């Protein structure tokens, strides 16, 4: 194992671990060239694709968020409208019920009044007819009485 160490230390012209020569600059040039080639073939195109995708995802997400917010706004709006409509309908139903009730009462009252009035009239009519009939009967009776009296007086 020592011989290669000696070889390296001795700096023998052909060989050694630390044998620096034109390999160094040529390798540097090669790596620089590789950098440019890889930049053209790999880093630039792949970077463009990845960054485009990142941009696409960001904008899509922003758009989706915007749409979601819009949808939520619409939903809230519609819910509010629905609630208003329900309340309106409830109010209408109540009003209609009250109105029918009122109408019913009015009709009932009218009918009662009518009925009362006609009954009253009928009673009055009956009363007056009875009065007249009684008057008639009384006068008739008076006449008949007078007649009877006259006949009796005449006969005697």
């Amino acid at each position: 194992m020592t011989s290669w160490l000696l070889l390296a230390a001795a700096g023998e012209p052909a060989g050694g671990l630390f044998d620096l020569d034109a390999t160094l600059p040529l390798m540097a040039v090669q790596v620089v060239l590789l950098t440019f080639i890889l930049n053209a073939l790999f880093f630039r195109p792949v970077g463009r694709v990845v960054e485009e995708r990142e941009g696409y995802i960001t904008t899509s997400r922003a758009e989706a968020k915007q749409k979601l917010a819009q949808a939520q706004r619409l939903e809230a709006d519609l819910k509010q409208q629905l609630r208003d409509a329900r309340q309106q309908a409830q109010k209408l139903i109540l009003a209609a019920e009250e109105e029918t009730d009122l109408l019913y009462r009015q009709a009932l009252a009218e009918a009662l009044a009518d009925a009362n009035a006609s009954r009253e009239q009928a009673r009055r009519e009956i009363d007056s007819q009875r009065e007249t009939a009684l008057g008639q009967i009384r006068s008739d009776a008076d006449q008949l009485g007078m007649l009877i009296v006259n006949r009796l007086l005449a006969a005697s």
Partner: protein
Amino acid sequence: MVPLPLALPFAALEVGQHLYWQVGNVKIHGQIFLSSWVVIGALLTFVVLGSRKLDRDPRGLQNLLEYLWGYIRDIARDYIGEKAYRDWLPFIGTLFLFIFVSNWGGALIPWKLIHLPSGELGAPTADINTTIALALLVSLAYFYAGLSRKGFRYFEYYVEPTPIMLPFKIVEDFTKPLSLSFRLFGNILADELVVAVLAFLVPLIVPLPVMFLGLFTSAIQALIFATLAAYYIGEAVHESHH
């Protein structure tokens, strides 16, 4: 090459042996370039296959690529900061991917099947040249990042919070690449050596736990290198609040 008593085909130790290529009038380590080309080829194949049809709905390899991109972006963003990380993401990412694939490639690809006249194939990061190259790139990167973003106000960093810090900060500029390069080099080389020694002593089963440990440390080293690079760049571009 150490003369080994038992020259098993899969368990020979070679350290400090290089396959030299003559380019112009300089020498380079051929095996490092061969294996780094394999590693870079694998990386590019993976990236090209995965990014053929990039779509908003990811499928197949695109998922893995996007995961990697996100992972690297998180490192860069956490340590460099929101403002400057985009400029440095490719650099941090390349460091991470290259080191990671090199380390794992060194451990997972059966390099021994390919016989070289001298030296052996392995992780490119197990060679000090590669790691120093990477570390110096990081140094250049953070100097460039600081100077390009803040101009000469960058040097205020050296006297903050007090001028007493000046010598330490200057020393730091040297220790940063030194520690970066030696940490990576030492870890990967040590891992390869331990596996090689164990495979040489007990060829079956026994090296497996160490190999798994090696995969773990390899991944950690890639992460550490990328994270520290990002941290140094972030430190250089950081705007202190007066």
